């Protein structure tokens, strides 16, 4: 095997691509529901929008809260369906497309990590279709997963260019990090100053630490696909360093800098844990958290014993639950997504029944039901709806639409009181 083949097609512990996909998709589902939906009201305001690409501006209709919120509700549900079951590469492809359209539709969303997530979702399409059952049964079997190595390379490239940015003057002098410092970092600085440290040394030191940490991460991600195959002690040591670097860099960012970057840090820590922790640790983590998926996978074989009529009644019940959950959250576009998802459940089941393979759709059907329940619970328990209607109310007030603003505030108040 040539070096190229060994790097991209060599064996990695199956648990890594498996967990990478499931964990990122799980985080993504709650990310879009908790952080994206609350700002959905702003799409199409003042009849104005600019997409990331001119051709998209020409092709797409004016984005609206219905379109954006509906899209995010759908992305979250589809992500969880892929977590709880393995419907196929078509589902991952659809997820990557919907999510990517979600941010490219408007320059409202210029977060670079949403672009990174799109790249990762595209790579997920090519991840092996490993089942929870197989992974937990056999411990750490090895798979060839070139897309897993590609995600690592993509993250490494992102860090390389992040380092290049930090070589600019304001990073080198520490000026930029000083201006972004949170009160916590300011307190550390006050303490360092009391110990006689000069401001230049302190702030430059912070910038230097960030650069060195990112260098460690680049090396770590570049070598990660070879750790399981070579099993070298040095590679394992580098992996531990890289994990420590990822945690300190991203936890430090959350703690010490005033940035609005959503859950980016959590994604990066999660991905680092999966790439750098020993596979035996990941297997143990999976044994704790992967039971719902394993349970659903086992239902596939159990479902073959269930009478066809009972199966169809079950499918209809799940479809009703999914549709109902969409309407119950009372957000624009969510009801439509509920209807589409319910139709997909019924349509998919009928199509499978026509080919005598009804039992095969049991896991995705149940996964859709679970995703819908979690979606409903997330909106009921989180502040997403309160923030949505508060934001809408404030905007309408700024435009002089007092009556509509009051209606939005009233809705926010209702959801706020229902959480108390």
């Amino acid at each position, binding site marked *: 095997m040539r070096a*190229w*083949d060994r790097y*991209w*097609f060599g064996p990695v512990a*199956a648990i890594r691509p498996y967990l990478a996909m499931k964990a990122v998709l799980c985080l993504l589902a709650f990310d879009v529901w908790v952080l994206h939906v609350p700002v959905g009201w*702003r799409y199409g*305001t*003042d*009849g*104005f929008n*600019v997409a*990331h690409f*001119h051709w998209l*501006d020409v092709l797409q209709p004016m984005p609206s809260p219905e379109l954006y919120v509906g899209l995010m509700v759908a992305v979250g549900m589809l992500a969880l369906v892929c977590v709880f079951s393995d419907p196929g590469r078509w589902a991952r492809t659809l997820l990557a497309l919907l999510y990517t359209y979600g941010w490219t539709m408007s*320059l*409202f969303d*210029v977060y*670079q990590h949403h*672009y990174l997530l799109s*790249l990762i979702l595209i790579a997920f399409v090519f991840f*092996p*279709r*490993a*089942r929870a*059952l*197989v992974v937990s*049964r056999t411990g750490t*079997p*090895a*798979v*060839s*997963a*070139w897309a897993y190595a*590609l995600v690592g*390379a*993509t993250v490494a*490239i*992102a*860090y*390389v*260019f*992040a380092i*290049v*940015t930090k070589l*600019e*003057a*304001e*990073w080198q002098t520490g*000026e*930029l990090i000083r*201006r*972004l410092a949170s009160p916590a970092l300011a307190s550390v600085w006050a303490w360092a100053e009391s110990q006689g440290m000069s401001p230049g040394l302190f702030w430059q030191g912070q910038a230097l630490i960030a650069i060195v940490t990112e260098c460690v991460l680049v090396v770590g991600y570049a070598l990660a696909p070879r750790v399981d195959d070579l099993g070298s002690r040095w590679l394992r040591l580098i992996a531990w360093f890289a994990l420590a670097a990822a945690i300190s860099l991203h936890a430090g960012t959350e703690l010490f800098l005033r*940035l609005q970057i959503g859950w980016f840090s959590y994604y990066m820590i999660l991905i680092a844990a999966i790439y750098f922790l020993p596979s035996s640790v990941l297997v143990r983590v999976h044994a704790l958290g992967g039971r719902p998926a394993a349970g659903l*996978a*086992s239902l*596939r*074989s159990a479902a073959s014993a269930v009478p066809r009529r009972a199966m169809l009644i079950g499918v209809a019940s799940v479809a009703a639950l999914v549709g109902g959950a969409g309407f119950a959250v009372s957000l624009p576009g969510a009801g439509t997504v509920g209807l589409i998802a319910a139709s997909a459940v019924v349509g998919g089941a009928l199509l499978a029944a026509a080919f005598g393979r009804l039992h095969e759709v049991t896991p995705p059907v149940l996964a859709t039901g679970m995703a819908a329940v979690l979606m409903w619970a997330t909106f009921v328990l989180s502040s997403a709806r309160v923030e949505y209607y508060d934001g809408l109310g404030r*905007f309408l007030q*700024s*435009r002089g639409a007092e009556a509509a603003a009051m209606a939005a505030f009233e809705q926010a108040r209702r959801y706020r009181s229902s959480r108390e």
Partner: protein
Amino acid sequence: LTTPTSPDTLASPPPGRARFIVSLFILAWLVWQGAVPLSYYVRGGVQEDQRFSWRMFSQVWLASKSCNVLAFEVVAPSSPGEPPSVRRLDLRHVLHSIWVEQARQNRGPLVEKFLRARCDRDPSVLQVEIMRTCPVAPGPVLPEVDRRLTCHVDPPSGGPPRTP
């Protein structure tokens, strides 16, 4: 636990020709991932559109935060013989604050679309102008931007525009 594994459950390397195609895909992906951020640096000068270049929290981004954006419209006179008037737009009342933020970052397509939208919205608007000024400060010097769009080809009658 007796579920049979599908052929790609424990995936093996793609065979011969498929591996070659996947290798080409990987290569193209890597070139794309390298070339797009590199193009930012190749373009030279102060590039303010930093999307897809992994330039998180750059000095250009920080410098643009202290820029100021102003917009004006030249409006046709309400009665014949009067000169057109100039009015200043309160951007926060006609655009979401994020668009104003983006105008500070000199996003060309946004500015052009805004100018066009103002012309289309009100037939009495003869010309729209948007200006960005940035204070002189240490770090990158962001250029002043002054873009205007003439909504109507016919020149307004009644003399030069008057400011309110």
